[in-house]
């Protein structure tokens, strides 16, 4: 089992959800994040004092999948999120040792989907 974490542009979320849906990945968790990457920030100025904002709004998606689903999931993420512009985001993949469905107590591969 793998845990896939992706940071994407907020306005791509709907497209990503659509792409994941088409790849039959139905379960995901989303959080609000701020990111600092290659994309340069912008300046805000408030009452004459200038501030550089380099933490930009991003959306963090977390998806736990069985091995077979890693590739389709990553492809779907890329399909939905890619615009070719700096700031499109990153995907991080790590190992998951276990997964448990709270409602039923099922564990492992069965619990993930």
């Amino acid at each position, binding site marked *: 089992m793998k845990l896939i974490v992706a940071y994407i542009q*907020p*306005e*791509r*979320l*709907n497209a990503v959800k659509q792409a994941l849906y088409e790849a039959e990945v139905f379960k995901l968790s989303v959080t*609000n994040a701020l990111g600092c990457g290659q994309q340069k920030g*912008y*300046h*805000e*100025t*408030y009452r004459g004092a200038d501030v550089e904002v380099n933490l930009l709004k991003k*959306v963090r998606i977390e998806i736990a999948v069985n091995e077979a689903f890693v590739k389709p999931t990553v492809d779907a993420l890329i399909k939905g999120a890619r615009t070719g512009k700096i700031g499109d985001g990153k995907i991080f993949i790590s190992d998951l040792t276990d997964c448990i469905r709270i409602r039923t107590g099922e564990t492992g591969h069965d619990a993930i989907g």
Partner: protein
Amino acid sequence: MSGSCMQPGIRLLIILLLMGGLAGTCPAQETATSETTAASSAVAFTVNNVWMMTATFLVFVMHLGFATVETGLTRAKNTVNILFKNTVTPAIGLLTFALVGFNLMYPGDHWLSGHVVGFGGWGLHLPEGGTTSAYNPGYTYWTDFLFQGMFAATAATIVSGAVAERIKLSAYMIFTAIYVALVYPLAGSWKWGGGWLNDLGFHDFAGSTLVHSVGGWAALAGVILLGPRLGKYVNGRIKPIMGHNLPLATIGVFLLWLGWFGFNGGSVLSADPGAVSYVLVTTSLSAGAGIITAMLTSWIIQKKPDLSMILNGCLAGLVGITAGADIVSIPATILIGGVSGILVVLSVLGFDRLRLDDPVGALSVHLVCGVWGTLAVGLFAPGKSLAIQALGVVSYGAFCLVSAFVIFGLMKATLGIRVSEEEELRGLDIGEHGMEAYSGFQIFTSQ
């Protein structure tokens, strides 16, 4: 003078004059009575003027009402921009109205061509007797200017909501300056300035057409030329773009209702007890009826009662009654308000189907119900002609729509009227102002 202080016929006249506060035209008979008459008349003038000043304050409050309604019904990322526009609008409105608009709208005898265009000269100049009832039994020159100036700026504010979340700040401000300085007063002179539509007997008590439709037509031109917001119509489907702060929107609607007491009540142009209080009652009952019918319509069509729709319903009832608030009966009032509440819901849905993206429902409220209210005078008010009312609606529509298309069109062809796609996505607050409305709040939106 003999024992009899005054002739009976004249007595009655004086009383009538006094009630209207027309002291200035008081017969110059050498009696003690005529002086107390003058005194009493001066008091009547003072009362009228106090009322008109109060009405002016209430109309001023409408600017805050518009600011909060529009802010509440749009997204958090465009809030600073909307507040900015709505703060600048009354400033531009009052200053240009002082410079040129007031004398364009109320040319007095200075008509340039027929009763179509008139101009009384630049700037504010107190006429002789301008602070007495010789100017007008109901108010001083200064009250007159301020009341009308507050009105003028509302017409531009109506546009502000419809074009929100995508128009360039500079384009909006240029449009507002031209529209308030020239188009609104010129159009207004046709009726309130004593122009040709007034001559024909067109009735628009407080401006269903002269203010609301005039603003509404300009909004329509803006909406058409700007196009919809990104993400509103996707693959042939309508995606809701939700307002970010419904308490603000509700505050705005209550403030607008409050302001309408001055907008309509002040349009009596004196404190005449019967006339003003009747107008307040029709205004309120129409607002109430608009709320109820908008609720029912929304509940039936949308399955759940939509707060934003009853807020629009309230405003719809207010706009609808504005043309005839002084002369329609109580049952007709409730009918006018009730129909407005239905119309507004249907037309919000209708405009969306036409792919005309109006974030706050300004077209449905001000244009559709403004037209409806003006026609309703022809239907329900004794002695008013539906044909003349329709003529007024069409004339204003043609003039305002063309003017607005020209102004927006020229700007579109030159400096551009719409922000870039990137700016629209990130929000106009950062794009146009480099600041956020809710610093520190976590806002999460994928639109």
